[in-house]
């Protein structure tokens, strides 16, 4: 693995390996000395062309726990606001010998452009590009789901897949890179994905995605999902009227107290509620965010472990040799189904 650009082209074996490494990384967060020397002397650049708090802080904490040097490059106040192109910015970072570039960009495909170019030799990690993908968010969601799934199943997390799990993703799928990354990754790991949202906020071509689509939230909840992932309503990307009013959206698509109580009535004791953050409280989610079902803070915590694993796997190892050591190759469980509409790579 040289870059981490999307979850769509991530194989089940690579995804499981990353999650297993993240499992070991999470133990470091519980120690007194929360630092490992693995990336000593390497430089990680956080290149953020869009606002972000938690993703940038999470990557920064991950890189620092692995002893890498971190350079935060926020576009506000940089030469980019003077009109510098992505190419010139990249070549500047190359001249400063960055080993990894964590990039967030409003344009879909910007990280892939950077990775495919010869502007820079560094490993590229996509931290969210336009409405395309946000792979580390999907990986931390999968990590959180897997821990939950393993706990109910009474098995250790490491090596477990999401086979048999039913995950419902609700809300603004159209603008959500988190939803896209999750659809690909969770199905690769064996979960069944359900999507629910108003038709105006579902993308064209969703019929070819490996998931079932619902146009009514309560109908989707009736499918008894093991996890409900609420998406943030991305008001900043909305230049058209997608629904009549926020009150109506909240009533029809928000995870409110009534729906929280519904889970109890249905006897879904093990169903968790997720949100990638930042939350619009009172809009897509309410008191459910503070209920015992909420995994929202666990997701933030797991984000650091997953990003440590991604940085470690991209930056350690002989760059000319991609194959895992023969005694460490992952053997996939044979019962892992190949999701419909997907080709194995």
């Amino acid at each position: 693995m040289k870059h981490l650009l999307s979850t769509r082209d991530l194989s089940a074996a690579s995804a499981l390996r990353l999650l297993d490494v993240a499992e070991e990384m999470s133990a470091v967060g519980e120690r007194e000395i929360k630092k490992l020397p693995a990336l000593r002397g390497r430089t990680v650049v956080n290149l953020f062309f869009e606002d972000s708090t938690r993703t940038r802080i999470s990557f920064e904490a991950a890189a620092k726990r692995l002893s890498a040097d971190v350079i935060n490059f926020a576009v506000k106040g940089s030469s980019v606001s003077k009109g510098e192109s992505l190419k010139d910015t990249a070549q500047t970072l190359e001249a400063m010998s960055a080993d990894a570039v964590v990039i967030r960009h409003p344009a879909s495909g910007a990280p892939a452009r950077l990775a495919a170019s010869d502007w820079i030799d560094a490993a590229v990690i996509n931290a969210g590009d336009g409405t395309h993908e946000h792979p580390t968010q999907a990986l931390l969601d999968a990590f959180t789901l897997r821990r939950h799934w393993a706990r109910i199943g009474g098995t250790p997390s490491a090596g477990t897949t999401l086979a048999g799990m039913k995950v419902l993703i609700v809300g603004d799928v159209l603008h959500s890179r988190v939803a896209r990354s999750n659809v690909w990754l969770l199905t690769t790991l064996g979960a069944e994905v359900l999507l629910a949202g108003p038709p105006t906020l579902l993308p064209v071509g969703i019929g070819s995605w490996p998931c079932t689509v619902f146009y009514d939230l309560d109908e989707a909840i009736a499918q008894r999902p093991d996890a409900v992932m609420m998406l943030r309503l991305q008001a900043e990307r909305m230049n058209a009227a997608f629904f009549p009013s926020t009150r109506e959206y909240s009533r029809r698509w928000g995870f409110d107290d009534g729906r929280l109580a519904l889970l109890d009535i249905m006897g879904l004791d093990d169903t968790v509620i997720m949100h990638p953050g930042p939350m619009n409280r009172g809009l897509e989610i309410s008191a459910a965010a503070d209920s015992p079902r909420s995994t929202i803070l666990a997701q933030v915590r797991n984000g650091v472990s997953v990003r440590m694993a991604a940085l470690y796997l991209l930056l350690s190892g002989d760059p000319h040799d991609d194959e895992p050591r023969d005694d460490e190759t992952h053997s996939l469980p044979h019962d892992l189904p190949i999701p419909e509409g997907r080709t194995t790579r």
Partner: protein
Amino acid sequence: MTMPAPESGITKRVVLAAADMDRALTRIAHEILEANKGSADLILLGIPRRGFPLAQRLARKIAAVDDAVDPDLITGQLDVTMYRDDLRRNPTRSPQATQLPPSGIDDKVVVLVDDVLYSGRTIRAALDALADLGRPRIVRLAVLVDRGHRELPIRADHVGKNLPTSSRERVRVHLGEIDGLDGVAADEVVIEDRA
């Protein structure tokens, strides 16, 4: 006992059979108790992968001699992957779990356990990993096989067998706990040479 493997040019030589290995471990267990003047504050930390089952076996042998010892409470596993000095020269290694006994390692007598001592670099990494986890009173090293060719000033306190080897040869330790499923005859130490 030299016999060419039928399918390749690799010769294999068994240097420790199951009974030899068991006797060597029994002796090491007694040496550890002798050096420590008993089992007080004793912790055995195995280095993945084959050091951990060896540490468990040593702990059981110590418990057989000393009734006060619960083998599960004095054994642990210490992963050294993230502390290695060759992370960039070899294909990426996946870290294994580090599990310490509930009592921790502060002010304890920690015996590191590994299968083969070769360059000494793994033990160097283990000493660094240990320093991030606590401050043992004493750190000792027990290995099943010492094959020489040290690259660092490190030596073992307890050795199962000293094995003069050429650096062209490979020393493989097979343990029932890890290799038993592969159909390999469990519990043996083999020297392989590419002829």
